C-alpha cells in the first residue's frame, strides 16, 4: 500500500486527531504544549506516545522506521511531533 500521508497537512490531521482522542479535547493544535496544556508528562513518559503514533502511521501505509521515542521525548508541542512524523514519511 502506498503511503497515504502525502502532505504535511495529512500528518498534522493524523497526529492532532490522535491526541484529540487521547485527551478528549477539541481545541488541540500544533501549538498545543505538552508542558502547559497537556499535564506536563516528563520526557520519559512522552516517549511512550511513540507506541501509539507509530502504528497509526504504519496503518496509513507509511514506513515509520525513522520515527523514534527520542523524538517524542524531545517534543515540546504537538507540532514537534508532526514535524518528526513528516520528516519520517517524506
Amino acid at each position, binding site marked *: *500500500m502506498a503511503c*497515504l500521508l502525502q502532505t*504535511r*497537512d495529512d500528518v*498534522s*490531521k*493524523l497526529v*492532532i*486527531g*490522535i491526541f*484529540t*482522542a*487521547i*485527551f*478528549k479535547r*477539541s*481545541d*488541540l*493544535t*500544533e*501549538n498545543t504544549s505538552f*508542558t*502547559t496544556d497537556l*499535564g*506536563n*508528562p*516528563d*520526557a*520519559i*513518559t*512522552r*516517549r*511512550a*506516545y*511513540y*507506541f*501509539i503514533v*507509530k*502504528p*497509526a502511521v*504504519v*496503518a*496509513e*501505509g507509511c514506513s515509520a*522506521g*525513522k520515527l*523514534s*521515542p*527520542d523524538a517524542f*521525548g*524531545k517534543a*515540546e*508541542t504537538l*507540532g*514537534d511531533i*508532526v*514535524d518528526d512524523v513528516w520528516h519520517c514519511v517524506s
Partner: protein
Amino acid sequence: MVPRIASCGVALALAQSVLLAQEASKPSTNAVATQAVKAQTKPQTVFDWLNANGLRFQRAFDGQPNAADPATVSFLSDLGKKSTVYDANFALIYQPDFLATTLGDNAYLSGLASIEGALTSDNSTAADDAWRFRLGLDSDFLKHAGDKHMVTVYTTLNAMYEADQAFRTRKITAELITTPSWLVDKQANPIGLGWDLDVGVGKFQWRPYFGVDVGDTLQHGPSAETEDTVLRLIGRVTARLSFPGAAKVLGVHDLYLSADDKVYGLPLETKETVHNYFVGGLRVEVSKAISLGVTYTVGADAPDFNYTRTVGAEFGVKF
C-alpha cells in the same frame, strides 16, 4: 482513513475515537496551513543542531534521556570542612539515529556512547568526583497496552568504566538502569508518576529508577567500596515541585524545587553496605537551555563514597 487505521491491530482501539474527534475538531485548511508554516519556520539554535545530530548535554547520564537536568558549574560551601569548592557536573551523550532500530512492534533500541564528569577543585571534600565512560544501549519497551492502562519501560544497559577524578579508584562494570511509565487512559495517572499532579501550591512530579552495577575493581584507591567484585543495587527517586504561575510572572521558562535521592545497597561489602546520596535545590530555567539555581547535597556517591555536605549556587546548561 477509517478502514486503513482500523486494519492496524495496535491502533484499533484508538482509531474510532481518533476519527470521531478528528471530524469534530477538524481545523480549516487555512488554519492547518498556518500552523504548518509556523512549525516549519521555528528558529533553530546551535543547540537544536547539535541535538539533531545525536548529541545531548546534561548533568549526568543516570537514565535520563532528553536532558532532564542541566550540566552545571557550581560554587559550593562544604558545610563539614567550612571551605569553598568549585564543582562541574556534566554528561555529553552521543546517540545518533543510525545506531537505532526497532525490535518488533513493542521495542525500540538505540546505541549510545557517553562521557560523564563530576569534577571539583578539591576532591578531598566533594563526594561526587567521578569520571564515567559508557558504551551501551537504550531501550523503550511497551510492556502493556490495555484499554485503560498503558505501561512502558525505559531501560539503559551499558558497559561502564568508572573512576574518581584523579583515577585513583578505577572500576569496570555493567550498568543497568530502568524506570517505568504509567498512563491511565493514555493520559496522566493519579499519583504523578512522570506527570504533573496539582497539589495546590504547585505541580508535583516524581519518577522512580531501579538499577544494578556488576563488575570488577581495577584499582581500589580511596573508595569505601573495598571488595574486588562490584555489586551495587540502586534505588533512586527524583521529584519536582514546579511553580508555573510564578515562572510566568517572572517571564522565565520554568521554576521548580527538585529532589534527587539515590540509595546504594552494597551487599558484598562487610563494613558500609548502604550509602545515600541526595541532591536538592531550587532552579530557575531562564530559557530552555540556561538555568540558575541553588543546591544542597548530602551523602556519598560512587565510586569513592566519601561523605559530604555542601550548599551552593549553580549555573546550568542543557541541550
